[in-house]
């Protein structure tokens, strides 16, 4: 269970006040909202990349509000994938395990497993500069999943992809979330994408998060 309680964030003149929501374990949560409403700010705060002014964040009952990002066990995939330019795909995926002190055999085994699930086996020896948008996002996903995080945060991972690649990756996301049994918090603008992937849906608007019902045809309030 991921629980965000009365979270308060300030960014210059922008402010999120008393944001609260809960995501059940192994759920695929979708967070939608208009541009500039603070979705990425909220996601980065959960990952520990932005300090919060008040409130609590709990993951599996443990409070992580003041925990450094490196110790939160949260995987993060930014919108632009932010791959490491000087590392080959294999090392990108193994990076999280390398800095956490996993043995070489453990890293090899896990990289092989993720490369097989995400269809990356053929590109393990390549640098990011030669990869397509879909390949980049799959590498970023494998990198974030490598150390078996308790929560996976995805910031519009499909927004820059073309139609076919987006459809393929949507299916892959669903499959990998189930096979890895990981709780996901996924930001998107796309209602159809949200309806296909999400088991629980939230909308961030005017500084408040509320649960909604999401269908291919649109988003409705639960109340």
């Amino acid at each position, binding site marked *: 269970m991921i629980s965000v309680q009365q979270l308060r964030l300030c960014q210059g003149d922008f402010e999120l006040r008393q944001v609260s929501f809960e995501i059940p374990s192994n759920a695929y949560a979708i967070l939608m909202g208009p541009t500039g409403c603070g979705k990425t700010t909220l996601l980065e705060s959960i990952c520990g990349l932005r300090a919060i002014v008040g409130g609590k964040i709990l993951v599996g009952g443990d409070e992580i509000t003041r925990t450094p990002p*490196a110790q939160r066990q949260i995987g993060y995939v930014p919108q632009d994938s932010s791959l*490491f330019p000087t590392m080959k795909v294999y090392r990108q995926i193994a*990076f999280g395990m390398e800095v956490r002190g996993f043995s070489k055999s453990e890293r090899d085994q896990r990289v092989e497993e993720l490369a097989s699930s995400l269809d990356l086996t053929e590109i393990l020896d390549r640098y990011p500069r030669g990869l397509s948008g879909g390949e980049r996002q799959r590498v970023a996903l494998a990198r*974030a999943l490598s150390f078996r995080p308790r929560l996976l945060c995805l910031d519009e991972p499909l927004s820059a992809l073309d139609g076919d690649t987006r459809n393929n990756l949507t299916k892959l996301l669903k499959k990998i979330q189930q096979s890895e049994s990981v709780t996901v918090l996924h930001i998107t603008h796309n209602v159809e994408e949200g309806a296909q992937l999400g088991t629980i849906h939230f909308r961030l608007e005017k500084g408040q998060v509320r649960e909604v019902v999401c269908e291919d045809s649109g988003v409705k309030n639960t109340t």
Partner: protein
Amino acid sequence: MSFFGVFYLALIIAMLVADFRFTNWSDMSSLLSDARVRFSIWLSLISCTIAAILSLWVAIPTGFVLARLGSESMTQRLGQRSRGFRRLFNGARYFIDTLLDIPIVLPPLVVGISLLVLFQTPVGRWLDQRTGEVFASLGYAGIRGITYEIPAVILAQFTVAAAFAIRTMRNTFEQIDDRPERVAVTLGASHYQAFSMIALPQAWRGIVAAFTLAWARSLGEFGPILIFAGTARMKTEVLSTTVYLNFQFGNLRGAVSASLILVTLAIVVLILTRLITLGGNSKKGVIV
């Protein structure tokens, strides 16, 4: 506009041609046969290399910190602080930036005098004495301290060269996107690991550029060396002081020949750097 550029280029070429025409191979040969000049070439190469390495040692972490203090993610973090804190932070950052640029804008003689005065203070004298003791214990009894000794040559070169190297490294790290470093931290990396494993490998061209700039700047350094290290032959004489000493004693041909050695060394280093950093672009930390 291009006329002024062509004029400047023509001026540089004309100066070099005039130097080459003024001297001949026998002047150069007689200069190089002088043991004191060979010593000054040797000391120049060694001292410039040490000063450039020391400059990089300081410039890489300082440049990284300065670049990241001005990054977008830092601006975001500051956004959560009060307006007064943001003003104080930015003021402190600009103040440090300005302080680090002082050796670039100060007249070289002032740098030399300031170093000399610094080593007249109790702390400076203590450091001078301890350095002499360290060299003596290492078997270099000829080096009795810092002032007017070889360490003074290196320190004078380093004081100016490091400022150029820091500026180069700061520009390099500013051009490197910091988002991968932020992702690395979420993957479990410490801030040091994010720096050393993500940012540093991307900055190699900037590092080469900073080293070259520091080396070339050290090679041309004269004023601070004159004041702080002196011009003792076979002791603290470097190539720039060889030019000065030859000129002072009326040996203009010798001074020009020594100048040409300096010019040749500088051109070789600049060409090598261009070749090493060839093929990069401005988004990959290329500064040269």
